[in-house]
């Protein structure tokens, strides 16, 4: 009996201690909270983990310097598993718990689903992992933006490069049969025509396809100078590249942002040599002068992924919008925040992007072409920064 009472008492004490810890507000109401529906599990987890780390590091950097207008920054985020219903649940959960004015979303579907709610709330701006061309429309998505070029602008950067290197080149488009994959096809066709390039063919591969032998035959028939892949992270790129090499084709293979991480190509090895693609940011190891990259390297001595840099820069832009709004003495409404974001002109990102940037609309239409050097085991810049702002 005595034992039971003691146990009960212990349980009560432990329970109330937990309840106190749980119930006590984790931070002051003055904190400036950045919300995040971030994929830490599921197919996009590799990016989500980097994004979260990047955002946290930038937040720590700003907090060390006293925060924004004396307010400390804080990231309130949860895992979404890259599922739109979970992303919306996380959004609802975080916005009912915290006063959020800045948000990071994880997918195009989420951006689209939450858009009417963002417009209705008029209290926050959102950026995210999606570079969908559709979102780059300030009228339809007034309170969203992306920390880089949209997918069409990415392929346009590649086309600019191709047109300079090989005028009149034949270009093959290879896209995955997903919304992500099909996104830039129309825009790429139109721009290629303007630049005098020929679209040799468009190959659509089923999502997750491993066997690409029929597509390789199409590639062989098309005999393109360049093949632009979009809608993939890695597979089936190495397969295409090795088979094309076996067939003696000298096609140059290119990709877009999400397939440009250095570590994934490092794991591919020799076959990866010569792979090119568009990068909106500098790589962790770039040696050109970039104080922010130096800071990142001092905080994290090991390689950080492109997703990390994306998260870092996105946090920087979100915070910059809030800072500018508060500088003006305005309230943190979505309209004011977006206006402040759009006032960013010739902004120095500390070298994360190699040129000063402006955000007149919903994207930053700047990027650079990098090529993988298998011997050095890293991406090497092969072009200057290309701006495709119309």
């Amino acid at each position, binding site marked *: 009996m005595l034992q039971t009472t003691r146990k009960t008492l212990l349980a009560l004490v432990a329970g109330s201690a937990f309840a106190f810890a*749980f119930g006590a507000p984790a931070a002051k109401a003055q904190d400036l909270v950045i919300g995040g529906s971030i994929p830490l*599990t599921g197919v996009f*987890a590799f990016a989500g983990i980097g994004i979260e780390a990047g955002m946290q590091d930038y937040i720590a950097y700003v907090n060390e310097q006293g925060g924004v207008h004396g307010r400390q920054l804080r990231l309130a985020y949860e895992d979404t598993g890259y599922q739109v219903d979970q992303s919306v*649940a996380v959004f*609802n959960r975080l916005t*009912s718990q915290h006063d959020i004015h800045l948000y990071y979303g994880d997918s195009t*579907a989420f951006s689209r689903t939450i858009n*009417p709610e963002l417009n209705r709330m008029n209290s926050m701006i959102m950026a995210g992992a999606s570079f969908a061309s559709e979102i780059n429309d300030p009228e339809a998505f007034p309170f969203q933006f992306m920390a880089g070029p949209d997918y069409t602008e990415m392929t346009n950067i590649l086309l600019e490069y191709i047109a300079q290197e090989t005028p009149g080149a034949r270009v093959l488009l290879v896209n995955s*049969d997903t919304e992500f994959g*099909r996104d830039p096809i129309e825009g790429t066709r139109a721009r290629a025509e303007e630049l005098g390039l020929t679209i040799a063919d468009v190959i659509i591969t089923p999502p997750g396809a491993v066997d690409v032998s029929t597509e390789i035959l199409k590639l062989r028939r098309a005999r393109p100078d360049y093949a632009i892949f979009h809608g993939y992270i890695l597979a089936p790129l190495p397969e295409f590249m090795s088979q094309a090499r076996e067939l003696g084709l000298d096609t140059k293979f290119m990709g877009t942002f999400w397939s440009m991480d250095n570590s994934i190509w490092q794991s591919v090895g020799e076959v990866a040599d010569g792979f090119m693609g568009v990068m909106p940011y500098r790589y962790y190891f770039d040696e050109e002068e970039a104080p922010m990259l130096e800071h990142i390297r001092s905080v994290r001595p090991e390689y950080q992924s492109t997703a990390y840099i994306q998260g870092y820069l996105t946090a920087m832009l979100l915070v910059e919008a809030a800072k500018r709004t508060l500088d003006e003495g305005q309230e943190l409404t979505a309209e004011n925040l977006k206006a402040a974001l759009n006032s960013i002109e010739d902004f120095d990102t500390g070298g994360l992007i190699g040129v000063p940037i402006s955000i007149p609309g919903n994207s930053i239409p700047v990027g650079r072409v990098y090529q993988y050097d298998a011997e050095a085991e890293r991406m090497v810049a092969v072009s200057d920064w290309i701006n495709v702002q119309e």
Partner: protein
Amino acid sequence: MLIATAKESYRADQALLTNRAQWVWLGLLIAGLVLVPFGANAYWTYLACLVLINVASATGLNILTGYTGLVSLGHGAFMALGAYTVAILEQRLGTPFLLNILAGGAVAAAIGMIVGIPSLRVKGLYLAIATIGASIILQFVFLNWTSVTGGSRGINVAPATFFGTEMARPSELYWVIMPITVLMVLGAANLFRTRIGRAFIAIRDRDISAEVLGIPLLRYKLLSFAVSSFYAGVAGGMWAYMFRSVGPESFTLLTSIFFLAAIIVGGMGSILGAILGAIFMTMVPELLRFAVAFVAPFIDNAATLLAPVRTMVFGLLIILFLVFEPQGIAEIIRRIRRSWHLWPFRK
């Protein structure tokens, strides 16, 4: 204390609710359902809507798989049919939302009957694969019939309006989703008091015997597919109004597996089972978030470190349920009810 329930007529024997305690519970449930939007914040109301949509859909699959014994992995595709129908009608004709949702159900039911045709020849895993085949075809149509479905980008859905008032938020949509789901669940419960429902059960238990008893298999198997797909279509329609964007990636094979798991975990061939299964599958991952939040003050970066753990715990819970309670959560409820029968006396 409930000693026995004396029944004096067949009508009383078939009644859904047989004693006062059940009426009290039902009253409490209805009161709870009505009070949700008043007491809950945006997050909980959103989850309530999501649970209700999933309950409606799981109930549909339960009619087909749990009661008629026809395994289907095409349920997600039927939901997609409903969602697309709603999206297209809303976009092109702007017809009233209730009509759109019903049309979503009707289209799904019509296609469902066609998809159900192989069930006359194949059963079990073979039928499951046949339904996967059908959903692959539907998926292909959603993706490639661009002029109608919007291709890979899908269709944005305007909010449902009721006499000029927009219903865009979960707290408003709740008043659409909740009554529809309640009606559908009631409909399903009543279905099994009718000749049709009993025919379904007879087919599940032994289809050859059912045929010998004079049940036309063709008619009833296809009817079961139609009813089940109707439920999925209506649930998909409600989903479309809730998420306001329908695309080929909205409902995948995983959606179908989700609902199959829900009825297995909840308890196949039981109305309560489908409800509990849908609640379990939707709410457990969310409740595990609270567990993560609970330990967050003690661990740095808890959300990142524990996200995979949360997924694994969810998977583990499903396995444990299957091992220790193969009859599903509904059986646990039944056992609890039985143990209270003689209250306040002990057995």
